């Protein structure tokens, strides 16, 4: 138990900085693309390991699988509206109701499975990490009283949409320049504005319309079948 | 030695005063094929769940269960998981993974079996069940029958000593159900596997059983060989809902009040009838009549396919329905009958042909008009209509006319369910709620997609009464079904669907007495004596008009 926690810490605080330093110094022509992909992948490992270590029971697995599968299926159902995706909102709602770990897994697993179905690309790790971390953040916020207000839901939705867009832009910019370039970053962020807007809008719409119904359903399942009571 | 020994077992769900199981005493021997039956809520599923430790619900338990003379609670977790296999009702819900081979291996992975052994056992099972051809398929690409077979196989790889099945065929079509029962029979006869099966479709299973256990209100009321159990049932009141689920031959024997050996199969029933009654030439009860104009539905030469380049599913459908009819459309899987229902409801659009509703082309109706008092479709899965937290809210969401809601609730007799959560109801109750929602739109035409699927005999009878009531008030009903017996007993007209069109139609007596294979058990049992009897009641009525031969009443 202790050993694996240590492993996570080592990964987060030693291996990742090490890769960054080695990457930057060794290959001084600044090939940050691959480095960033590897860093993002490694950053996900501690979350997976903690899930592994906890020995999740069948019902926990199923609830997270259901939430992930619905966000992917929902993405297909809303395909006619470009950029309009329920994934962030569903990961967040799962996070609010079932805790940070469930939030992270819902986001990350949604990213992995939708990419298995629709095709992997270099963006997979970024998507996995971003959606996961947004769900994780929601899990932390869900422990406070903040999320009972519509205003905070809207703020969360907008920030999450902008963050998602910005992180996805980082990889596009880096893959283009091989290094990070602020001018191009702003240009990319600028051209992606309509998408950023759609991400934020879809987050807000889904959160406002679905937070209550999904929340109620998750609560019911939690009470009726005693799921994830340890959170 | 008894494999299972249950001593004085009682069980209460939390916060319920009435015992769900009341001093059950039972022994199941090695290699027995036991059929457990009773109406829904009699405690049969609760009893099954007591036998599978991992699924036992919380509650107050007294008494004990011994498995191979060891208390069930004392088995090691590994032994408990592998020695007792459990197949549930819904084939879809039990499948855990996305690949057939992974599903087969799943239980063995959990038991910590090594790869080489898993490989061998999976190969063995796949061959026994004939799964090798779809071994590398995705589980989602299987048919319902294949899915349930996969569920059974993925339990059999764990080599259980006891196999428990809770209504495993209720979601399957009749052909898949027969195949599934045949495999169970084979497992029992060839491998000596002990089987405890809960079923409400007893026609086929009942005669196969070594022993039949009948439960009522948490108690065992009969526990004997099939024929003795059937005889014991005569002690029950004639109106006991349990009786509705029994095979036709037993019900007939029961109704006619004989005391000799009870016939269990169609063949025995036919022989028994010949021994006691004489052949009578009876003319068709009604002269066949075609529906008269004006038609509420008139479909002419309708063709449909899903893809532009796909095959036609519906090929030249002709269908005329008059007001107040109760039409049932029968036929095998994939013949296009459900698709036709969707065409009639306007959900799908035909690429050729005309459909008229009340004399006006279907496609000229606006959706708001069509689904607001003209036509309604009760889907196969009632939960597709359920969204609220209580049944009352479900109805209020449809209309604000409390008078209408009151009427519907009265018609369906569901006052006691109004405060319940829709997902806490039984399948039959959920269906009533869904039907209620649909009826609040006051449709003139009601379409039903396999409404009797998964219902026990008693719930079917109640459904029939509701539909009859609606029909009397002028509602036209069209039902797609696999349920031959139900359509023979309650419909005003039957139509046979095959290869994308209707190939024969008539009122039930003419329809079923004209069919040789695709007909009711009652007709198969009695056609050598009475040519036009298609329900048990009709046989009984004819028999009662004659003094029986070889009397020993």
């Amino acid at each position, binding site marked *: 138990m202790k050993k694996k926690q240590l492993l996570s810490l080592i990964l987060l605080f030693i291996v990742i900085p090490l890769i960054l330093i080695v990457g930057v110094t060794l290959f001084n*022509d600044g090939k940050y693309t691959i480095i960033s992909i590897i860093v993002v992948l490694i950053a996900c490992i501690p979350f997976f390991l903690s899930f592994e270590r906890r020995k999740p029971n069948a019902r926990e697995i199923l609830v997270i699988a259901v939430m*992930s599968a619905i966000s992917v299926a929902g993405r297909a159902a809303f395909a006619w509206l470009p950029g309009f995706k329920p994934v962030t909102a569903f990961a967040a709602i799962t996070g609010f109701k079932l805790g940070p770990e469930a939030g992270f897994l819902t986001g990350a697993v949604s990213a992995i499975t939708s990419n298995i179905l629709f095709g992997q690309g270099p963006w997979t790790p970024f998507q996995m990490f971003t959606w996961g971390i947004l769900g994780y953040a929601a899990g932390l916020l869900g422990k406070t009283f903040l999320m009972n207000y519509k205003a905070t839901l809207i703020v969360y939705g907008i920030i999450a949409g902008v963050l998602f867009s910005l992180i996805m832009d980082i990889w596009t910019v880096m893959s283009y320049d091989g290094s990070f370039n602020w001018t191009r970053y702003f240009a990319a962020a600028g051209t992606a504005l309509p998408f950023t807007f759609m991400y934020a809008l879809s987050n807000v719409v889904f959160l406002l319309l679905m937070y209550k119904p999904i929340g109620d359903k998750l609560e019911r399942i939690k009470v009726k079948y005693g799921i994830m009571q340890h959170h | 030695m008894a494999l299972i020994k249950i001593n004085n077992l009682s069980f209460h769900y939390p916060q319920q005063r009435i015992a769900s199981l009341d001093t059950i005493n039972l022994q199941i021997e090695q290699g027995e094929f036991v059929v457990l039956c009773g109406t829904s809520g009699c405690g049969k599923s609760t009893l099954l769940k007591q036998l599978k430790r991992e699924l036992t619900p919380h509650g107050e338990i007294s008494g004990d269960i011994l498995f191979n003379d060891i208390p069930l609670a004392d088995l090691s977790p590994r032994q408990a998981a592998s020695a007792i296999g459990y197949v549930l009702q819904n084939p879809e819900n039990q499948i855990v993974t996305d690949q057939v081979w*992974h599903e087969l291996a799943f239980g063995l992975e959990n038991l910590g079996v090594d790869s080489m052994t898993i490989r061998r056992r999976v190969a063995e099972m796949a061959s026994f069940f004939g799964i090798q051809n779809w071994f590398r398929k995705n589980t989602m690409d299987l048919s319902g029958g294949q899915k349930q077979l996969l569920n059974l196989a993925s339990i059999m790889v764990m080599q259980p000593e006891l196999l428990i099945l809770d209504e495993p065929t209720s979601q399957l079509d009749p052909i898949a159900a027969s195949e599934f029962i045949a495999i169970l029979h084979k497992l029992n006869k060839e491998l000596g596997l002990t089987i405890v099966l809960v079923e409400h479709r007893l026609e086929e299973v009942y005669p196969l059983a070594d022993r039949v256990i009948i439960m009522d209100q948490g108690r065992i009321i009969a526990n004997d060989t099939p024929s003795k159990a059937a005889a014991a049932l005569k002690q029950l009141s004639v109106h006991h809902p349990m009786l509705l689920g029994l095979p036709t031959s037993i019900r007939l024997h029961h109704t006619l009040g004989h005391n000799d050996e009870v016939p269990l199969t169609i063949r025995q029933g036919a022989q028994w009838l010949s021994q006691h009654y004489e052949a009578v030439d009876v003319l068709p009860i009604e002269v066949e009549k075609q529906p008269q104009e004006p038609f509420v539905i008139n479909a002419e030469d309708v063709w449909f396919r899903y893809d532009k380049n796909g095959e036609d599913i519906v090929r030249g459908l002709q269908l005329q329905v008059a007001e107040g009819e109760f039409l049932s459309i029968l036929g095998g899987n994939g013949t296009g009958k459900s698709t036709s229902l969707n065409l009639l409801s306007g959900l799908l659009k035909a690429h050729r042909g005309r459909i008229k509703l009340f004399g006006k082309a279907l496609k000229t109706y606006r959706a708001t008009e069509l689904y607001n008092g003209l036509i309604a479709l009760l889907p196969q899965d009632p939960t597709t209509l359920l969204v609220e937290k209580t049944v009352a809210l479900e109805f209020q969401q449809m209309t604000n006319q409390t008078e209408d809601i009151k009427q519907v609730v009265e018609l369906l007799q569901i006052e006691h369910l109004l405060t319940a959560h829709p997902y806490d109801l039984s399948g039959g109750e959920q269906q009533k709620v869904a039907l209620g929602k649909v009826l609040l739109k006051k449709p003139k035409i009601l379409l039903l997609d396999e409404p009797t699927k998964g219902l026990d005999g008693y719930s079917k009878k109640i459904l029939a009464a509701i539909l009859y009531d609606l029909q009397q008030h002028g509602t036209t009903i069209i039902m797609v079904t696999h349920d031959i017996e139900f359509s023979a007993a309650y419909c005003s007209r039957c139509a046979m669907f095959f290869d994308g069109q209707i190939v024969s139609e008539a009122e039930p007596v003419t329809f079923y007495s004209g069919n040789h294979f695709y007909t009711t058990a009652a007709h198969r049992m009695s056609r050598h004596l009475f040519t036009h009897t298609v329900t048990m009641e009709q046989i009984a009525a004819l028999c009662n008009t004659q003094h029986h031969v070889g009397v020993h009443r």
Partner: protein
Amino acid sequence: MATAFHYSTVSMLVRTLVGDEMKSFYDYHPFVIFLYFFAVIGLTMFYMQPVLLIISFSASIILALFIDQTAFFKTAKWLVPFMFIAALINPLMTHDGELIILYVNHRPITVEAIVFGFAMSIMLLAVIFWFTSFNKLMSSDKFLYLFGKISPAVALLISVTMRLIPRFIHQITVIAHAQKTIGMDATSGSLWQRLRSLMRIISILISWALENAIETADSMKARGYGLKNRTTFHLFKFDRYDGIVTACISVLFLMQVMMSYLNWTHFDYYPTFTAIELNTPTILVVISYTILVCIPIIIEIQEALKWRSLKSTT
């Protein structure tokens, strides 16, 4: 614009995971396939040296053509013009470089920037093409097998999710139909009405899914899920050929890493192009890189020849 393509690619990219046309490399152990694409895609993203870029780019196209021609042309049809435009935009944004062609708004347009734009576009195209092949060769069960090596619990979670997705997509249509007949139509009305109806459908789906999931969880428990020492079963065997190819890929990949470390693969576009000399290091880099990226193509051709000779002898 930049973000535009990570999504639109998704729908355009290959959908079917199992291609019959490609038997040989497809049948290699998942680890071999993963290692190959890891090495090749990693190096492709890393190398900016034009010769190496062209090698990777050509090989990615050849492999994609071997695996699924129609899918390749479908992707290429819209992606190539897109990348062409992206390449032309670069000189408008970067004004570094020494070979100036003309001035626009008093800003220099340089040959270096133009060439760099094209180099970047070719690199990105190559990466996308490599991924189209990767998606075909790395079927979901192979991916899950590899993932299970990192985390069996998450791999199971993914497998369960993969099982549910198609089931839910189907159920969405079923619910949509049922809702339509009681007057809740998700395909007509204003945008807001459609959205509301769709949200309702998803809400119904969630109830249904969560309640049914409990039974799935029961089915897992009934089959002993949660016991200690769970094993993971798979259908993959690591045979001699897998070993040989793994060794080849590893050696060639390590060679590339070494040579990069020695700066043999270095190439600058700014302030002006590095000269490429025809010397031993360059030749070594080019030959070993060519062999590495062509491994599946070599296997494929070998396989085709073997089949032909088998057929002709019978």
